[in-house]
């Protein structure tokens, strides 16, 4: 018996949950303005999230998946990407999208049940939300193939949940990315739950990062409550993708501080107190502690930030609520470039009936 291959999975953290530095900080983290930017984004996302849940409760939008407790993941990943990179989202990563030109009001429009919230027309390098779990990493691999064929020096990033790593598509995407050396980064947002199924019942793999070994490239774990680590490791992985056509799997670990969606009731399956225990690690407080320790943050700054962010979100909510309804014929208008003749009659009927029902 001979050992023919060896592998290791590293774990990255710069700030621990007390806001203390535990490893050499990356360059950007030495610029407090950069850190405050990340902090502001996390706060803004949390305010949006609270608002979105309230809008759902009052029937102004439909089912909505909260991002509470996962702000470090999405803000850090978004910050680690370049504008010309391509982003292929799942359905929970608003924190990335809004850094890439998508408006919060689009997000509301989407969860409000309007396709126009999914076209991200003003933010070209982003794919639409993908609801079928685990299906979008293949699209990312396809985009990366296109970039590589065209010799464009950008990279692609896609996010999947911990539950999504069990889908065959996720593996197939990694496998082709590995063997074709594609410029793509696979982020796994491990929030430790897939609706009611905990991470431990999803796979026997000790880490999700090690799933990359099956595809022949490196995977690593990142503390998702440490936005500095998330941004840094994203930047490193994206650079490696761009410059060396080498994919990476980033397992970014946080905790879902919410129900799965507003349609879910986690008290049915989440042990009492678990969420509270994890709250000690949540990402916003951690960075705040560090900023305070650095002396660049205080209660007054916090208050004005909160006010400013709340106002921004109010404005975006107002934009959403004022959106004109789509036309009924929009059901037919985007099926094909040109509607085939056989469907014209149906479209006419819809307009006629829809017009009536409108009234």
């Amino acid at each position: 018996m001979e050992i023919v291959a060896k592998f290791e999975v590293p774990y990255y953290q710069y700030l621990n949950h007390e806001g203390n530095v535990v490893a050499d900080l990356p360059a950007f983290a030495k610029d407090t303005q950069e850190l405050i930017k990340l902090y502001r984004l996390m706060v803004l996302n949390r305010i949006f999230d609270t608002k979105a849940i309230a809008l759902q409760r009052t029937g102004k939008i439909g089912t909505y998946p909260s991002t509470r407790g996962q702000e470090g993941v999405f803000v850090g990943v978004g910050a680690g990407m370049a504008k010309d990179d391509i982003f292929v989202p799942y359905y929970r990563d608003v924190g990335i999208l809004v850094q890439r030109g998508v408006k919060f009001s689009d997000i509301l429009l989407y969860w409000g049940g309007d396709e126009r919230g999914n076209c991200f027309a003003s933010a070209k390098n982003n794919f639409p939300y993908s609801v079928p779990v685990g299906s979008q990493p293949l699209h990312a691999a396809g985009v990366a193939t296109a970039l590589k064929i065209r010799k464009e020096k950008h990279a692609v990033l896609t996010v999947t949940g911990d539950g999504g790593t069990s889908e065959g598509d996720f593996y197939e995407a990694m496998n082709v990315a590995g063997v074709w050396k594609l410029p793509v980064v696979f982020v796994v947002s491990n929030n430790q739950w897939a609706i009611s199924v905990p991470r431990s019942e999803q796979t026997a793999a000790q880490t999700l990062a090690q799933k990359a070994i099956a595809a022949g490239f490196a995977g690593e774990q990142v503390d998702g409550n440490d936005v500095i680590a998330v941004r840094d490791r994203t930047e490193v992985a994206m650079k490696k993708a761009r410059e060396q056509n080498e994919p990476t799997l980033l397992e970014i670990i946080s905790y879902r501080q919410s129900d799965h969606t507003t349609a879910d009731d986690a008290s049915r399956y989440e042990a009492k107190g678990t969420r509270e225990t994890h709250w000690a690690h949540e990402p916003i407080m951690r960075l705040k502690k560090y900023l305070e320790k650095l002396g660049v943050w205080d209660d007054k700054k916090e208050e004005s930030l909160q006010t400013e962010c709340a106002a921004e979100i109010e404005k975006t909510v107002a934009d959403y609520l004022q959106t004109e309804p789509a036309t009924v014929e929009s059901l037919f208008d985007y099926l094909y470039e040109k509607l085939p003749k056989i469907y014209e009659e149906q479209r006419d009927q819809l307009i006629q009936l829809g017009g009536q029902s409108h009234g």
Partner: protein
Amino acid sequence: MAEMTLVEAVNLALAYEMKADKSVVVLGEDVGKNGGVFRATQGLLDKFGPDRVRDTPLAESMIAGISIGMAAAGLKPVAEFQFMGFLYPGYDQIVNHAARIRNRTRGHMTCPVVFRTPYGCGIRSPEHHSESTEAVLAHIPGLRVVIPSSPKRAYGLLLASIRDPDPVIFLEPSRLYRWAKQDVIDDGKALPLDTCFTLRVGTDVTLVTWGAMVKETLAAADLLSQNGVSAEVIDVATIKPLDIDTIIASVEKTGRCVIIHEAAKTGGVGADISALVAERALLSLRAPVQRITGYDTIVPYAKMEKYYLPNEHQIVEAVTNIMEFA
């Protein structure tokens, strides 16, 4: 006997059969502690334990594939796809294996599996939660496709499906999950899988439907009777294999046939029924067979859903038109 909703009747049937038959195993995403996202499997984990009520990893081809293995090995798995739009990753396993194991082994191996899934639109869900693509299953030889449209039929047809020695796709109209309550007797009596259900007897027109559209069809029949038109309403229930005889007999009586389904018109099961009626009862027809269906579009997100779904007025109008025809 108790008043209950359709989803509660599903739950009742599962509990009944799990108790009666130790080989029945329930599996799927979130079917355990959570009791299913619609609560169809609520309480089963507590009653029957984690060996027989299994939360699976998130992978639909896997759910389909291991169910096939379990069934061939002598269990009776009842697997849930969380929504019909998430059945497709399991399509290969269903079509290439579940439907074929008996045939492939000349009957030496069988595949008594039930694949349950909520289906249809109208519950204001996100994309992919509104599919009614029963036609892509009904085309496949070797499968049964069963669709209940009332609590009683949900109970009786699900029992029959679990007891059936061949693979059954059991499509539960989510729009009806909590619609009307019915008294359901928990007596373990199955309903037949080889027959349509005539919900209302009539003489002027045969309305053929299944799933959630039973609701609009019955409403239309009410409206029609106010107009003096007597409609017979047939719930097909088992769309594969089809009990065409009941439909033909009705059309021979009424001379008119309107088929109503929620799925897209092109290639819907309505086409098949229409073709069969034309082949077998052309001379009885006093007017062309009509289809009232969903549009040939992708089911829209919540805000436009109401424009996608056919309604009772469309049915009334179609019937009224063909009443004038002859």
